[in-house]
């Protein structure tokens, strides 16, 4: 899941960036509002973490402008202010959830997962597909009741396919969702991951539609 992180404080931003990556997210981190604002249109993000106290372009106006331009990505706002007004204004301006500083990394991750789950209309904490059970919280996969170990990117890919069942996912989209701009992507990376998933979970799990992409059919 790819997250857009906009936070001007270097230490907090760095912590969230590294930490969320460790927790299985793909993040792009921007330290100023202008760049962060533009970034949302340039990649398929699943959620946004937005600090309201930005020095150049204020977080609230970024949020309002996004919503005006029909960006529906779930947004988690970070407020330094403990006061209720700031949160209300934030939520009214289109935020989906908020966290007040000081917060814990684990809480940011949990809220992001909840937001993404809600936005993809997948409200159950576990996803079942044929003989496979996927637990988004713990990032674990079971096949016929037995735990199967997947690499982080494979997990991300599986989760993406499970959330977008019966939809053809192009190789480009998958690549963009899995990798941030900082990471180097090999041209056959997606194919390799699909190959590994099929090997571990069964050949028929993901179908290839030639020259278009991949699909997971019910």
């Amino acid at each position, binding site marked *: 899941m790819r997250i857009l992180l906009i936070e001007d404080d270097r*230490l907090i931003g760095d912590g969230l960036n590294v930490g969320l990556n*460790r927790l299985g997210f793909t993040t792009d981190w921007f330290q100023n509002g202008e760049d962060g604002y533009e970034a949302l249109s340039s990649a398929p993000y699943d959620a946004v973490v937005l600090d309201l106290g930005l020095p150049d372009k204020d977080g609230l106006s970024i949020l309002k402008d996004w919503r005006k331009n029909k960006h529906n990505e779930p947004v988690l706002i970070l407020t330094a202010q403990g006061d209720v007004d700031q949160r209300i204004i934030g939520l009214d301006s289109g935020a989906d959830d908020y966290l007040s500083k000081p*917060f814990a990394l684990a809480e940011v991750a949990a809220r992001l997962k909840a937001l993404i789950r809600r936005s993809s209309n997948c409200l159950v904490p576990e996803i079942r597909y044929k003989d496979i059970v996927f637990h988004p919280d713990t990032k674990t996969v079971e096949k016929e009741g037995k735990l199967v170990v997947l690499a982080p990117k494979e997990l991300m890919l599986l989760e993406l396919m499970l959330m977008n069942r019966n939809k053809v996912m192009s190789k480009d989209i998958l690549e963009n969702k899995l990798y941030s701009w900082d990471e180097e992507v090999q041209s056959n990376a997606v194919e390799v991951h699909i190959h590994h998933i099929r090997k571990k979970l069964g050949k028929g799990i993901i179908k290839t539609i030639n020259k278009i992409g991949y699909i997971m059919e019910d």
Partner: protein
Amino acid sequence: MKDLSLKQRLIISFCVVAIGIWGGSAALSWYESREYVNEFYDTYQLHLARQLSTADWSNIKPGTQDRVNDLIEELEDDGEDEDEALGLAVFDKNGEMIFNDDEDGKYFVFNPKASGFVNQPNGHKGKMWRIIWMKSVDGDYTIAVGQELKYRNKAATEMVEEAVGPWIIGLAILLLAIIFLVTKELRPLKRITKNLSSRGADDFSPLSDKEIPQEIKPLISSMNELFDKIDKMLVRERSFISDAAHELRSPLTAMKVQLEVAELAGDDKETHEKALANLTQGLERVSRLVEQLLALSRLESNAIRYKEFAPLDWASIMDNVNKEQKQLAEEKKISLTSEISEPYFINEGQSFLWSLLLRNLIDNAIKYSKEGADIRIILNSEKLSVSNNKITLNSKNIARLGERFFRPAGQNINGSGLGLSIVKKIARLHNCEMQITVQGDIFTVTINRVE
């Protein structure tokens, strides 16, 4: 008297004065009445004596006295005769009493030398009498007409009492009026006292000066000014505390997140170490923030006073600060040059504050300039200025510099956002002002005296 309230003092003073004046005038009027009574009765006695002196006393017979006594007794019953305590007696050449009024006159003691008015005791009970002694026309007899002095005093007192009766009622009314008026006039003070004592600790609304006497209005307006000052100070303190708490949240969040990253890193040594290094930076940031907050709060509370000012040793101040900042500057390949020329624009002050000011300015100059920049410190008779080129600030940020807790975006992680606030405060404390100018890529902070 010292411990009494203003109201009690006023009432007591007014009452004492009123009673004193009343008593004084009563005494004066009694004295004048007595004078008048004396004059009146003296004249009366003189008339009586003169009439008696023209009578022919030579052929007075032994039975005359008794006959006169009977006549008087007969008369007594039908006239409105007031006993005026008068007495009369007639003596012959030998001092023998040949006639009297059968009352007090009987006891007159013959006084051969006396002539005119004499105050003397009479033979009965020894009371003091005022007696006029006069020779008869033929010179053979002596006439004595007297009156008891006590009676005269009594008459004077009666006269005064009659006049003074209404005065006593007047005095009582006056005293009541004093108590009532003093109480009424002091009521606004009582109201203010009640208002003040029932106030909450954070209520600084001004006192109303409606119906307040002119004399107290300045006091009320001074109190209102004081309330206003305290209120503003409290608002300042509160916003400072909330700003400070707010500023502490960011580094605390950073440290919390970095600690979690360190825990998550597991076997990944590089991530682990980086997170710990970030954690240390966060700690440094908090320490510096707390340090600056303390400095600023000391400056804002005016704990530093003019009397603590001493001559400034600029050479050593510049030297020390330069030494401190040298390493930091060298790390960024920044050159530090200072141009000092005597006399200086300021010679007295607190040297540790000027060190703090200079350190903040140089610190900022190093932080907000690119590698290889030049920092120039100028100290002369007009100003102290610190300037650096190759700035990293944009024009939007420059306008906001000096605002408490404002920090330009991103790059600087150790700034507290308080540096220029501190510089501003220190300058103001020394009657100086801070000016920021930007020319091209050269940023200058100038401190000079306020004219």
